[in-house]
């Protein structure tokens, strides 16, 4: 099913892509181009395009969403509606390590709110913010499905279970040290 998008925006043409400026200079729109070509004309693939874009850029700034809207012919309000509906999408950048702190039932019963307090205390940030050194952001998530190891958090693709206030902070300290070491080298 073809979607009708007769948009006259110059950015629609690949050769003029480079002139399209985003507020975040780190955004290289050519990286998203293959997916836009693949999905832009297929009805029902907005979520897939947004997932790819977030995979590439780490977040979905508003001007990028406007661009996706133009390229796909889907109204900006609808794009924004989808982005804000699903918890996976974020419109603000995150720290280098995204901590997903499980707040599922099992984790809640086993004290996940204390773990959150300890992490917040240590990083001095609120949910969704970036720590001062740029290394961490934490988000509360509904359930990571590792209930038997509760309380649990996930950083990158690694899951840490049976957390205590101390062990959670220790894990963050170790990651920070590791990052520092790598930065020096």
């Amino acid at each position, binding site marked *: 099913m073809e979607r009708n998008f007769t948009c006259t925006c110059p950015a629609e043409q690949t050769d003029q892509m480079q002139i399209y400026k985003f507020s975040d200079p780190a955004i290289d729109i050519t990286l998203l181009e293959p997916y836009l070509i693949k999905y832009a004309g297929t009805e029902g693939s907005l979520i897939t395009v947004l997932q790819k874009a977030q995979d590439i850029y780490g977040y979905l700034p508003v001007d990028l969403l406007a661009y996706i809207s133009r390229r796909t012919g889907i109204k900006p309000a609808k794009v924004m509606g989808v982005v804000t509906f699903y918890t996976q999408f974020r419109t603000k950048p995150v720290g280098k390590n995204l901590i997903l702190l499980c707040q599922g*039932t*099992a984790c809640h*019963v*086993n004290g996940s709110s204390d773990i959150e307090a300890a992490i917040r205390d240590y990083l001095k940030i609120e949910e969704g913010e970036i720590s001062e050194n740029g290394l961490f952001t934490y988000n509360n998530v*509904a*359930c990571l499905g590792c*209930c038997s190891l509760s309380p649990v958090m996930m950083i990158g693709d690694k*899951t840490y279970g049976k957390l205590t206030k101390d062990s959670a902070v220790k894990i963050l300290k170790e990651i920070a040290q590791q990052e520092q070491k790598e930065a020096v080298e």
Partner: protein
Amino acid sequence: MKITVGKGSCGIAAGAGEIFSLLEQKAPAGCPVVVTGCIGMCYLEPIVNIETDDKNITFVKVNAEAADEILKYINGEENKASQYIIEREDLDNLNSQQRIALQNCGIIDPENIGEYIAREGYKAAEKCIKELTPEQVIDEIKISGLSGRGGAGFSTAFKWNAARSSKGDKKYVICNADEGDPGAFMDRAVIEGDPHAVIEGMLIAAYAIGADEGIVYVRAEYPLAIIRLELALKQAREKNLLGENIFGCDFCFDIRIKAGAGAFVCGEETALIASLEGERGMPRLKPPFPAEKGFWKKPSNINNVETYSNVPWIIRNGGAAFASMGTENSKGTKVFALTGKIAKGGLVEIPMGKTIYDVVYGVGGGIKDGKKFKAVQMGGPSGGCIPAELIDTMIDYKTLVAAGAMMGSGGMVVMDETTCMVDMARFFLDFTVKESCGKCIHCRIGNQRMLEILDRICDGNGREDDIELLSDLALQIKDGSLCALGQTAPNPVLTTLRYFLNEYEDHIKNKKCTAHQCKALLTYFIDNDKCTGCTLCAKKCPNKAISGEVKKAHSIDMEKCIKCGKCADACRFKAVVVD
């Protein structure tokens, strides 16, 4: 000899990845190291199994040290591996279960289709496609009495028949793997541990209803499940178990994966379809049911992961064999995710009709740290709690609903005396408020109001008429909401009001939280007899609320105390008392 390492998400979180690499590096030649999914004994992870010609030994809680001992054992050297061998009791617990949906989980290598086929895999699909008519397949499912394992418990045969009878040139088979219920992980375990069972179940459903396209809607939070499923689909295609002319017959079917984007409401089938179509996942009015007008308005059959994984077994063993297990209105087995304050948490598959006692004190080994059992929450945010006095309640769809809970997808969160039931109700309401799609006013605003009331009760500002107000709102929300999310959202409040009214009254009238969970209702003080005057608590207090001379009993200034609990954590003499 073969070494098998359990590498489900829970095993990996417990360190199975490192153990696997270690064993792989050091295992002697001719001794392959392979992976398997979750066997369900999550409390014993990481689990390593050694299979020789004549025996099978399971080692549990394997750390690096244990792995070394296991290697010594394999090499025939002197070793201390025996201390890591699984206890008899745990093994009995595992063997006492009746496994259908989980029959291959933790046994086969999910990344190797050969192992699934070796255990009669795809035999059921072959039988259906080659020997049975679609009607005969549906009849067999009907005889089995299989009902939807995702929560609603609707008859699977009825759904399949409806989709089959719907006219249309194009039909879809959809697998709901958007396991959003916090505290349930059986679908993740099945996809990670036995992805081909789900594929085969979908294949049979597709044949029965006449579909040629399948979609699995998986939660994005389950990356390993997506990887294993992708691999399984690829292997199935290579063997022409998916694709054109399957089993040489005139039947074509293929499956693709769609990663969800995180919305609990997408577990509702019409919301799931909206999400598949790239929209916001908002439910719509039924009818038309998806069996008539589903994905892209074409007839679609949607079942849950566990439902599909039961199907191959039913075809192989006959519907009657499945129906012989369970109770009058709940047939077969059910997988439960046993978590919370339980000694032996994990996945359990038992025939319907067992009691909650059988699960909690049988397989589950009772309550953690010798505490007292208070209640079990079943059915997640849509369900309710069953209190200790009803522990002999039979597990079956109708009985659970009568008790105020529900089967749901099979999450069983065990609570002990340190769990505050008002706080639990607040926790679930907080969840549904965040997850409400916002379409119905009662759900969007009503639940928000209920949450505010629960917040103020937990904060010590509860009012005399709050209980009445909560009950009234709950009933209105149930009536005024379109989908199951809104209709069931007040359940956690209603069941806690029904069984734990005293806790609500304690919070509101006496300003006390007997479980010591609601911070605003706690008072911290120092036991003069136990305090040694070490000054540690005073140093840790962020608000300088603790004073006292060295080596003399300290005291807490109630005016300044912010009830953070840091003093109690710091005290080595248990002198800080919480009331």
